[in-house]
């Protein structure tokens, strides 16, 4: 299993040919009331569940090539790349844990959020039927699986974030966040006496290092960290997930924060945890940080850990009728 896998995905033409959208499909944004998002959303889910974003693949390959050839870390990263190629080719889920489905919808004035939610939920049900998603919504205490990925109260799963904006486009982003990595997320309240972490970037850095050491390989390392500084217990965690939508390798708009992210990524990769916690130099693929505002008395550092299979995607509908996926 140690032969070096070349990470070539199917071409966009092939992806297009397997699309659930009929050829020449156009979205009619002039008639927001009559718009049906079900099919474009189903296509988005088909892609996110089976095709990893290129920036994540590039980071994994870079990590693999930095490991000693034939080492357990190298072989593991190589298997991850092999898995990426297989899932894309077969259009099957990259991981059996197809995650919790988190959806962000940004839309112009006039779109019914209630209708959009219904249509997106219908797409999730259909994707589950097609085995693109595993039924991952169970009643908290009994553990009873609803079988459809729907919670009957229309409240918790999938999770929705709507925002009206002044652009004419509709953007829908989706994240499939696995349970293993969700379990190793952490929220710190500064100052933290045990860590010796104060209310400054040095303190924030200590929290992040601590979270990564506690996570070990459990969140399926090498992971991607979304870190929100500030906010409250809810908004901090929410932001920490949204941050993970940012592509790896795109600079943080704040140059100081950008330097912090890059230096910390290097430092975390000296921890020796490695892929799956087997040891090695690839412990994280990136650290993404954003500063928020906060109550004067509270200082939270909220950290979401995304597994190496960082399944995310964005669907854009334009007034021209064009539908694109990124």
């Amino acid at each position, binding site marked *: *299993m140690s032969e070096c896998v070349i990470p070539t995905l199917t071409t966009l033409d092939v992806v297009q040919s397997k699309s659930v959208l009929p050829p020449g499909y156009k979205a009619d944004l002039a008639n927001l009331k009559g718009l049906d998002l079900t099919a474009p959303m189903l296509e988005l889910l088909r892609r996110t569940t089976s095709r990893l974003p290129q920036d994540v693949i590039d980071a994994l390959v870079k990590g693999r090539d930095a490991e000693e050839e034939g080492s*357990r870390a190298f072989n*593991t990263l190589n*298997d*991850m790349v*092999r*898995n990426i190629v*297989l*899932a894309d080719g*077969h259009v*099957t*889920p*990259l*991981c*059996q*844990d*197809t995650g919790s489905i988190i959806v962000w919808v940004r839309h112009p004035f006039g779109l019914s959020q209630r209708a959009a939610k219904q249509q997106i939920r219908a797409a999730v049900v259909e994707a589950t039927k097609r*085995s693109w*998603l*595993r*039924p*991952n919504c*169970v009643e908290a205490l009994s*553990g*009873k*699986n609803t*079988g459809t990925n729907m919670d009957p109260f229309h409240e918790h799963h999938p999770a929705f974030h709507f925002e009206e904006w002044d652009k004419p486009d509709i953007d829908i982003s989706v994240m499939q966040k*696995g*349970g*293993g990595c969700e*379990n190793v997320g952490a929220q710190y309240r500064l100052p933290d006496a045990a*860590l*010796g972490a104060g209310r400054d970037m040095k303190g924030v*850095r*200590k929290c992040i*290092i*601590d979270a*990564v*050491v506690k996570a*070990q*390989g*459990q969140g*399926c390392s090498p992971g991607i960290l979304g870190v929100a500084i500030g906010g409250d217990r809810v908004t901090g965690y929410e932001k920490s997930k949204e941050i993970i939508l940012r592509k790896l390798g795109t600079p943080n708009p704040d140059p100081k924060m950008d330097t912090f992210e890059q230096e910390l990524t290097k*430092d975390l990769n*000296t*921890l*020796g*945890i*490695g*892929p*799956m*916690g*087997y*040891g090695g130099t690839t412990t994280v693929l990136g650290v993404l940080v954003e500063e928020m505002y906060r109550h004067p008395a509270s200082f939270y550092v909220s950290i979401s850990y995304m*597994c*190496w*299979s960082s399944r995310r995607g964005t669907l854009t509908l334009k007034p021209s009728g064009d539908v694109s996926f990124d």
Partner: protein
Amino acid sequence: MIRLTTPITEDQIRQLKVGDEVLLNGRVVLSRDMGHKYMKEQKPEWLKPLLENMVIYHCGPVVKKHEDGHYSFVAAGPTTSIREEPYQAEVIETYKVRGVIGKGGMGKKTSEGLQKTGAVYLHATGGAGSLLAERCKRVVDVKMLEEFGSPEAFWIIEVEDFPLVVTMDSHGGSLHEIVLAESQARAKALMG
């Protein structure tokens, strides 16, 4: 690379050491959170012939049901094993299980169980759902599907050259403990 086929003897297991790479063949039983709670609390007899000298796999697969009623695995990588820590040692002892496949490793209690009964913890690459599903060649049977739901059911499958690493052996060795200790020391230095 060591090839093992289930059922496995205690003698074969005692020879395995942390770091050994294994290709597993034969029958494997899937079980995770609900199954482990059920095995510990109710100790069902019917599972005994299925588990003796066999291997448990911590996995909640994506399963496809075909038109003729047979099942196949679409994605089937390991789930995080530490959630079974309260149950695992007792399950191993009750059912004489020889191996547990999962990810992330397990704790002291399980390590003691592995030593006592003669079993190992086998680590699979997390997230490699597509790759590992290809090695799950056949779904033989499924138990408690109605009661537990698909991800939690006892799926009985046959695997072929299923790639694994021994990260906890039957002599008290644990790769996870070593990596944890080293990374904690390094973190201390980084924090200054």
